[in-house]
């Protein structure tokens, strides 16, 4: 359990088209912003090594296409995720409303072991823009109702709060991974007991 082996954490970024998923990923990993990213087709990912509470981990951050019809192919990318980042555009209320369905869709497709406690982190992007339309209060209320999801207001363009958000994401992912590891060890014990039970049963039924 206390192994210090290098950990790979899989993070999936979801959200409507144009909210800035690619930009957030690139700002965090490459410390770069471009207003010229093409719309993502299919999926892509970047990796980054980070220190989380003294532990070196590799974040594998998956950027996906924002148009909902491409999600039927998303399953392959969702599997094995350790954290899911839900992104909306603070200037476009529709993209905030969509978070609910992105979250549901993810839970259905990825089917994590413990859906109620699967770590999501919510990011409101583009706070550098003037025309804000989703208030922090409204966003926080939604996050609170969803089992207190961490919420960050960021600007991928100006690198505002991006690192902070990803520290939380990495930590949540590491926690999730540790929990999953724990689960993986449980069956051994169960199997032993099953074998015992099977043995005693077969003894009973040997007639």
């Amino acid at each position, binding site marked *: 359990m206390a192994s210090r082996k290098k950990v790979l954490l899989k993070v999936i970024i979801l959200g409507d088209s144009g909210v800035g998923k690619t930009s957030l990923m690139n700002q965090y990993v490459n410390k770069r912003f471009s*207003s010229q990213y093409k719309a993502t087709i*299919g999926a892509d990912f970047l990796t980054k090594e980070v220190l989380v509470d003294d532990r070196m981990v590799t974040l594998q951050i998956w950027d996906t296409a924002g148009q909902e019809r491409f999600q039927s192919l998303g399953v392959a990318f969702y599997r094995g995720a350790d954290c899911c980042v839900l992104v909306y555009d603070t200037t476009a209320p529709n993209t905030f409303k969509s978070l609910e369905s992105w979250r549901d869709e993810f839970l259905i497709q990825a089917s994590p072991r413990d859906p109620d406690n699967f770590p999501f982190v919510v990011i409101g992007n583009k706070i550098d823009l003037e025309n804000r339309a989703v208030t922090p209060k409204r966003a926080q209320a939604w996050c609170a109702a969803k089992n207190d999801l961490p919420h960050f207001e960021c600007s991928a363009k100006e690198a505002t709060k991006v690192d902070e958000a990803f520290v939380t994401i990495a930590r949540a992912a590491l926690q999730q991974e540790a929990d999953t590891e724990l689960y993986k060890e449980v069956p051994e014990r169960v199997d032993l007991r099953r074998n015992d039970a099977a043995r005693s049963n077969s003894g009973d039924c040997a007639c």
Partner: protein
Amino acid sequence: MRIIFEEENVLVHGNAVPESGRISIIEHDSSQRREFVWEPIAAGDWTFLGGSAFDTGFRQDLNDISEYFKPKRNDSGLRYLVIKLRDGATLPSLHFGPGGIERVESAFQAFFVIKEVGSGQYKLELIEEPKDARLSLWEDDPEPRIASGRDVLNRGFGIFSKITRAISSNIQEEVARSPISRAFFNEGQPELPLERPVVIRATLVDEDDFRDFVLAGRYKAIKEKIFRGGLTGGARPFAWKQLLGYESIKNPEEKYHTLRAQWEGLTAEQEEYCTILRERRSLIAKDVTRTDPHRLNAEQIQRLSELLTTYCIYDQDIGYVQGMSDIAVVILDIYPDDIDAFWVFAKFMYRVRGNFERSQEAIKRQFEALRRVLAFTDGEMVRFLDRKESGHMYFCFPWFLILFRRLATHETLPTIWDAWLCSPCANFHLLIAAAVLDLKRKEIMNEEFGYCEILQVVNRLSGNVDTDEILARAQSLLVQISRSLSTPPIIKQLLNLSD
């Protein structure tokens, strides 16, 4: 007789007890008649050859199949298919394991044009036998026909009149006598050698060449020349119009203006009440500025937006889906005239619009088809991909969706589309995909790459490939497939390659 397609573990629930069986599509040598067959498998595969398992079963002439219905997953996790016949009867519903339905659909593609006419409901139109090349040349892209909306399915599968009690014994003998066709579907599938024939790309076809050949009626010859070498920039505008069947559009100008007026004439209030159009326009607005951000000026972005919005009105089932702007921008580059650009785009979309349907079934069928083709051209690679849990081919998604748009640059891409439009096999894009994988094969396999790394290799290729090299490789695969005596019919059918 030969077996064109087989799928095992197909359950039929028509009787009281579900029965497991095998479906196949067979072709009779003498009559060329093709049949769709389901027969039960009682115990183990080989009882089929022993001839003891034919208590029940059914067979149907492929020409009699008109539609199929594919409902959502049922409770047991199996998915089923209801096949409807021309006379209104339906075959018993067929229940499949994972991927089974997709495999049947891709097999059907060899014989039918499949059109989605409702939710989960597909109409099948028989592909006619190859016509005289001269007549069919500019006609392989007819105007979309309006599919009949009449509800023909769901009348239950109680009509068993079509089910024959037994499949005649002579068929069994025939199958027993043709071990080769069976072996293909089980083990020992034939594979091509990895040494590819060398293909050197031919010279470009210019405007004068093209016109001369067309005037002389030498359509097949000019298509072949373009396939081998591509078009010059000057020849392309006229040639693509011809190749895509632009001339079949009556009153393109008037029609275009009517379509355009339909969205331009909307008041702000009207648009407020039209959520679908409003949402589509908002998606378009987001995408046009980032389609080719380093290159397009404001006027070009405006044209792109107008073209896509007009298309939303023209094709309301698809509307706007991401990826379409990537295609449209290529066409806008070639046609300075908005009307030309719009109709060439619409004609182009007609060929690829399945890729943009909500169900994504067309894309999934292409993954399956590519997998099959690759299993023949490079079985080792398919086995490698399977071992790396990548045999689903998902990493090819952008290639199929926008026909290699992002693999090439805006200068080099049109040559790929030239070849695709003029290829002797309608699904040449599968061979282009196989060629790209061929190019990266060493890197992927020597490095023991897994799914993530393969995806990165594929994504990093963006704009970095030599399109002539890729096309030469794809042509070389085509030569190899066409010449090989061991090429299974299914491969030719998947590629839509005539003999």
